[in-house]
Every structure is written in structure tokens, then in C-alpha cells.
């Protein structure tokens, strides 16, 4: 499969992850420039429709970063999102997209390094999966 020019879409909620993303800059942490961060109030607002639309638009991978359940400002958002992620992964699998290309991480700390690490790790995972698929097709 030819390399797409799809990037990685990172959904963050407005709280710990968004602050972490800003803090990443302050601690000189880095992560791949192929990522784009989109902010919503709470990850509980995300639906399978929204997540799938990122893949439909050409994204290589989608990462959702939320707050740890006990930190969620809206009580149950991270838990809701967890269910949404599971359902979306099942659907991705059915239509031939590797479910590991949808990532879900919850942070308890606004540390910038933690955020950058999370994104970088996911980007590396996406690369690995893509190579695996390309290898299988070859």
C-alpha cells in the first residue's frame, strides 16, 4: 500500500491534556509534526461518527487523550469515551482499518513531558502498524 499523506489527529479535552500540550512547549519536549491537536470540552463528547470521520478524511491514526476518570471535570466523560473507543475499534476492524490505529490515553498530570511522550509513543505505534500492513501486502 502506498504511503498516504495522512497525519495523526489528536483529540484532547480542554483540561489536563490541553494544558499538558501547552506545557510540552515549556519543557522543550517534542513530538512528530505530523500530528494535529483538536480540542473539545470533554472526550465524552466524542462519538464513533466523529472518530471515524478522521479516518475517512485520510488520517493515518487517531489518538484521543483525556483525563483520568477520577479527574474528569464532567464526572463520567473518560468512561463514556472508553466505551466509544471500544465500539469504534470494532467498526474500524470490520471496514479493514487496524484498530490499533485508534489510540486512547488518559492523563493524570499536566506535565508537558507526559503529553509529548504519549503522542510520540502513539505516532511510533502507528508507524509500526503501517509498516506491518505494508509488509503483509508485499
Amino acid at each position, binding site marked *: 500500500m502506498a504511503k498516504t499523506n495522512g497525519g495523526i489527529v489528536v483529540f484532547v479535552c480542554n483540561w489536563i491534556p490541553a494544558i499538558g*500540550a501547552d506545557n510540552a512547549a515549556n519543557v522543550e519536549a517534542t513530538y512528530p509534526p505530523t500530528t494535529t491537536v483538536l480540542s473539545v470540552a*470533554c472526550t465524552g463528547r466524542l462519538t464513533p461518527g466523529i472518530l471515524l470521520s478522521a479516518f475517512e478524511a485520510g488520517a493515518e491514526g487517531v489518538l484521543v487523550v483525556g483525563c483520568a476518570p477520577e479527574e474528569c471535570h464532567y464526572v463520567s466523560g473518560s468512561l*463514556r469515551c472508553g466505551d*466509544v473507543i471500544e465500539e469504534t475499534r470494532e467498526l474500524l476492524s470490520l471496514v479493514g482499518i487496524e484498530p490499533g490505529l485508534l489510540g486512547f490515553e488518559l492523563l493524570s498530570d499536566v506535565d508537558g513531558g507526559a503529553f509529548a511522550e504519549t503522542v510520540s509513543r502513539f505516532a511510533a505505534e502507528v508507524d509500526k502498524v503501517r509498516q506491518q500492513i505494508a509488509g503483509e501486502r508485499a
Partner: protein
Amino acid sequence: MPLLASAGHSARAFLIDPRVAGMVCKGVIPSYGSSRDLYTLLRSAGDRVSTHPRIGIFLCECGGEISNRIDLGKIAERVRSLTGVADLATQPFWCSPGGLAELGRRVTDGSLERVVVAGCSPRSHGNLLRDALGQVGLNRNFVQIVNLREHCARVHPDQTEAATEKAHRLLKVGLAAARQAERIETIEADVNPEVAVVGGGVAGTTAALSLARREVTVHLIEQAPTLGGYLNHLAKLYPRHADAGEFVRARVQQIQKSDPITVHLNSRVTEIRGHTGAFEIVMEQGAEQKSIAAGAVIVATGAEEPAPEGRGERTLSLTDLESRLRTGDVLPARIVFVLSAEGPTPGNPASVAVIAQAALECAGAIRERHGEVALTVLFRDFPAGAKEAVQALAAGGVRFVRYSPERPPVVSNLGVEVEAFGNGKRESIEADLVVQATGLAPSGGTRRLGEGPLLWQDEDGFLLEPHLRLRSEEVLDRGVFVAGTAHGPADIPTSMAQAFGAAAAALALIRTGKIVKHALVAEVVEDLCRGCGRCEEVCPFGAAELVLRENGVKKSQVDRVLCVGCGFCASECISGAIRLPFLTDRQLRSMVTAAALEG
């Protein structure tokens, strides 16, 4: 036909069925499904469907921080010609006074309808920019802030080409957002200057008096025939052995003398409804139901000691014993206290501490008034501050035996079997009366109010205030505060401290006089609402509610003051009838499309 003409239709519209025209004139539009009258639809369609607004793009060099790592000139070239871009300019600091003035001027002179500022994080100058542009009449949601600094320049250093590509992409996302953005208004709601305090115990009376000192009108609501709450069951109060009865009498006097406080006795609160600044407290007074309006509510409905297993002549709770002390009953010769805190909140440190304090006071009272009673106290732990009290009582003849929580004492017909902590020595202590102190559980009132949508319960049933987790300046205090043991096991000083805190918060709220917030809230499109109620089920804040309309149809309704804009309702709604105007699905989708592809 002037009416149709004024609706802006072509002459051909005159041929249309007068029945429909009549519906437009009368404004009668039944709320079933796709009920919008065709003509009303035409008028309103323009608001929602994307037109081509004039967009201004303003790139910020950030004093070199951004421009040194991203080729802003290249980006300018690429975005200048995109659809809708009516103006593009670059400056070292848009946030400077000069920059802000220039922004305003460009918006006004260029009749710009949307603005995208690409610079630092929205957390830094977002409000500054939005306020400045608000001055020239631009709605705050028509201003998109693209973060080229924290999200690009600073985190992708030494990668000018890649960073520039990304910056270009971020700008496209901002443009997509700007094109689909909807106007966000400001919500204003009056705040009722009166406060309701539910519960007339330690916390409730403390809060009421604190507010009354500031001349706030307070409604103090108590379900029993008298004030005092749990204190009415206690004999002596820790740590200074104050007499509970005296304490309550003094309190009641203070309250009676206080003009701003209206006391409602024999009044059982069944429901708290409404939103911040406008609550309705529904109460039962005998067979009657009555409502009180208030701008803030303090819930101080307390806790109670649950009855121990096998409660009867030989087994009592600590509270039961205290009541006997108050009434001056004769006590049996041999009493054993079992302080377990194994009850409703097992091992809860606050519970352990409170039980311990109460037990010590009780033991002291027994020593004082019934010196002949043989008293043994079996305990798990005492809080550090109690050491002296324990030593004093021990010196006075009270026997203390510590046990391990893994092997709790066993009550039998003869007394109590206990295994001592440390040496494991087993002993059977004879007792005529065993007092089981297991902890504190939420009272009936606390439980009842906890089931309503405005308050949350922890796993033990004690109350939490929702606003504790919401720190944004956009979100207000919820207006319902909790104080005292309704929060969890607490001693009197703690309850009073909480009450002062709650009173201060309530005061701050009602002094604002008016609630003003940006409508970053959910909105119901009634025509699509099927009345299934899923939104009501998922809303953590009690803001979404199903209401029965006059025509017998159920529709969802969102209280804009209570709504915090989390979006759970919108994500749950099958019909797409609830939407978030400040970030619609459609807007998000177009942003996602712009973000998905590199370059």
C-alpha cells in the same frame, strides 16, 4: 398580501396555499417532527447553513518566537487565496496595544465577519483578543485562535519545513472552524438574594448565622420540631466536655434573635429544583406542600449512627447511650464499648476519629456521673490528639484494650470476646451492656437529596458538590453547597468550618446579583427531538430534562444556566436534536477533514 411580502418571498409565493400562509400568520406550528413551516424554514435556513463569511487571517510573529521557526511568508502566500479570506496581515505582536488597535481597525474597515489569529496559545491571550474584537462588534465565537507557538514552533524546533507544513495545516483547521462558527450569545440570569439552609444542626445553624451577620435573608429549614440536629442526642461535646443541651439552647436563642433568619420547623425537604440563582426548595409540612425560592442552597442534612446488629436491651449504639446519659437513666454495672468503625464507611479515617472522640466524651461523662460503672473500651485506633484524654480516663479507672482490625471482638451472651493487639492474648469480658460504635452513615435526608440531579453522592452515599471539579472561569458555582456530616463523618469544629466556607461561597454568589455567562451550552432543536430521554439519563448536572408539552408530546429541554457544555447529551442523541452551537458536529468534522491530511 403584505404579510407574505414582508417575509421576503417572491411574488410567486402568493399562489401558495392560503392554509399554510395562515399558519405562518398565526405562528401556530405544532411541534411534531419536521414541523417547520416551509416558509419559516426558508427564512431561518440562512442562519445555519454555511454562507461565505469574510475572514481575516492575522499571523503573529510572536516577537520572532514563531517567525524564526516557521516560514510565515510562505504560509501567507498559500492561505491568502483560499475561499473567504478577505484580509491577511502579519505583525510582531498582535496582543500589544498597537496590535489590538490594528486588529480592530482591519475588522471594521474590511467588514470582516470572522477572524483567525494565529499566534500563541488561546490560554495566553485568547480572552484579550476576543474582548478586543468584541469591542468592534465581533462575536467571540467568530474569533478562532490558532496555536502556532505551543503547538508548533516550540515543539518542532529545527524542523522549519515540517513545522511550516504543520502551521499551514493548523491554519486550514482554523479556517474550517471559522467558516462554520455560529454566534454565541451571553446568558444573563437574575440571582435571588435569599439563601436556603436545609438542616438545623451544627452546620446548618452555623451557616445561617454567618449569613445573617451579613444581612442575608436566610430560610433555615428543619424537619424535626426543634433545631439542634444530632446534638439533641448527645450529652457531652469533645474536646471541652461542653454540655450539648446548653450548646443547643444558646444556638436557638441566637437564631431567634436574628432578624434575617426565618426558621421553618417540621418541614421536610423533598426536592431541590431549578438552577443557580433560582432554586425552588420543595418541602412537606404535615400534609401540605410548600415551596421556597432561593438563589443559593446550603445542604446540611447531616448523618446518623446506624443501629447496631441485635440492638436491644443489651446492645446499643453510642448515640443510644448518650441519650440515656442526657435523660439521667440508671446505667448497668458493666459496660463495654466496641469502637469498630466497621459500619457504613469501613476504615474511613474520619469515621474512626469521630467515633473515638465521641466515645471518649461519653466515657468521661460516665466516669463523672456514674462512677460505679465498670467501663471497658475496646478500640482499633485513637487519633494522635486523643492521647491525653485516653491517659486521663485510664488513670480514672477506664480500661482500654486495643484489638487488631483483622480480628474484631465478638459479642456473645455473656459479654465480649477480644484478642488483644500485639500479644494476641484472648479474653472474655463480661458485660451487661455492649455499646457498638460502627461509624456514621448519611441521614435519610442526606440520602433523599443526594438522589436529586443537583447533588452527587460518593460511594457511601455522602454528598459531593459538583462544582468542585469545574475550575474554568466560564463556569459558575453551582449554587448548591454542602456542609457538615452530610459531606462525610466529621467532628464539630470541622462541620463548623465547612459551614463557614459554604456560607462564604453562597454569599459570594448572591452578591453578584446576576449570573452572566457565555452560552457555551447545549441547545435543543425541538423539531428533531423524539422525547426518548437519553439526554436526561446521561447529563451529570441535571441540566437536560424531558418535559411534557401542552400538545402531549415530550421534548428535551436544557437549562442553560446549569449546562456546562460537556456535550454528553449531544453525543448521546440519536436524532441529532441536541447540538453544541459553540462547536457543532459539522464544524468539528470540517476541522477534522482539514487536520487529517498532511500538507
